């Protein structure tokens, strides 16, 4: 895998250099896509939104409003905004079946069923969290970023992120309990 130089790529982005645009896409698309999939659980919509995020990057650069640094933070923040707009427009919960690779293939059928139900309940409860809570949980658990990296992406202090993730997990845990009893 080639080393990715964000500084050089951002410079190339300003001049619409195809090579640098491709490098940026290759570097960050998996992160952006996984983020969106985690929050929306719909592959088609996730693909559209992921594509939209990168097009917005080009448009922002063209309008001299593009990121000067920390491209990952810009992309994920943009993704979060687009997702929020999408949810507000559609007012619906994710209904897509869970992907097979979420499950442990060595589990028994009853274990698989139980686990699928658990994750389904999780997804439904997750969708009811606030945008900020969804954002922090997606970064910490969907993407696996560290506390410090999450804080950098959210432009918050580490202690603030600790508090935020605590409240997010607590809220999620309560909602899962509510969903389970429905």
């Amino acid at each position, binding site marked *: 895998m080639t080393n990715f130089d964000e500084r050089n790529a951002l410079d190339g982005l300003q001049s*619409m250099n*195809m090579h640098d645009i*491709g490098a940026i896409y290759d570097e960050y698309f*998996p992160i952006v896509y996984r983020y969106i999939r985690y929050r929306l659980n719909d592959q088609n919509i996730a*693909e559209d939104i992921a594509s939209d995020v990168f097009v917005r990057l080009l448009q922002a650069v063209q309008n001299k409003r593009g990121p000067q640094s920390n491209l990952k933070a810009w992309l994920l923040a943009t993704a979060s905004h687009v997702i929020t707009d999408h949810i507000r427009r559609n007012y619906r919960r994710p209904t897509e079946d869970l992907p097979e690779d979420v499950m442990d293939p060595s589990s028994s059928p009853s274990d698989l069923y139980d686990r699928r139900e658990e994750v389904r309940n*999780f997804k439904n409860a997750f969708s009811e969290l606030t945008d900020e809570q969804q954002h922090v949980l997606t970064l910490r*658990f969907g993407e696996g970023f560290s506390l410090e990296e999450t804080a950098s992406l959210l432009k918050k202090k580490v202690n603030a992120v600790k508090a935020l993730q605590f409240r997010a*997990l607590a809220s999620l*845990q309560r909602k899962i309990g509510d969903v389970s009893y429905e």
Partner: protein
Amino acid sequence: MNDLYNALEICLRGIKNGKSIDSVLSQFPEFAQELRPLLETSELARIAAEESVPSEVKQRGRVHLLQVAKEIRDAKTASRRPPVQLFPRFAIVLCLVGILVFTSTGFVSASSSTLPGDQLYPVKRSWEDLRLFLAFNPGERDLLESQFEQERLDEIDGLLGKRKAEQIEFSGMITHQSDGSWQVSGIPVSVANSTGSPNGGIPNGAPVNIIGITRSDGVVEAQRVQVLQPGDPLPPIGISDKNDSNSGEDAVAGNKILPTVAVVTPQPTSVGNVTPVAEQKSYQFSGVVQAMQNNNWIINGQTVHMENAEIASGIKIGSVVKFDGFFGNDGIFEVIKVEVKSADSSNKPQNNSDSKSSGNSGSGSDSNGGSNGGGEGEDSGH
């Protein structure tokens, strides 16, 4: 509360490093009851994450993004050229002709080796358009089109060598297909499920037109693949060996272009021993007969086999013909039928081995045994 938040974070790190919930909570017995449900929830959050990103999704998005980037860049370039916007391309070409008549030809010469994306590349293409426009004879026009098709192929080879990403279009022959990795006249092409192509697939040996983008890993990413239409010029079968010192001369010759002609005697094969790479599907092309030597002719700079061909009357050197056939295992076109398409061209290239261009990308230069680039004639992938 800070202690609680800190304890949660320490427990989360421990779980991420492979410890059990009980194990991490043993460090914080005072918080165990409150943290346990949160840690169990965090496990669900971790399980719900997907690792894989579908490759076709990624490729589709990449192609779309680069198209948008090109449109933005082209629009930006166009907006910076207000005087040029007022003039059609043809007018620019006429101005160039006037300049070239009275001045040195270095300007066009400098553009002759440019690649897509270079500043002078539009000059090169405009010059080609002018030459086609001034080629009133159908045969000469046919030869020029073949020459320019070869040039497109060589440009792509140049782009791939320099790891430049540019939008491209070219024609060639499929010689190999394997899991989305194709070889088309020596150019590696990546064909994804999202690539626009005919239903039912395209067999090896088929002549195709490809629209795509050159990638930094040295591969063309195909956006659309189409089989050439009947009557299209025979596509180049491989990358030419360009002599840089000659390319300038050729570009400014201004005279009728004589592509490099090389008569090739293929390895002897017994009659009936040649089988098409494809499923015996034949294709129709047009071109100018430049040489006729026994069972090998030169049409548009490429050697074609005439061993089993039905030859209509009236064909001679210089005739513009339409011919049907297929690409053999050796990458050389086997003609089944040939007939005159139009009257003689006024361009009568010299015969056989005495014929050499002043340098450039004559496709005949890579017809040596059909072994360059795409002429490997591997068996069909299906």
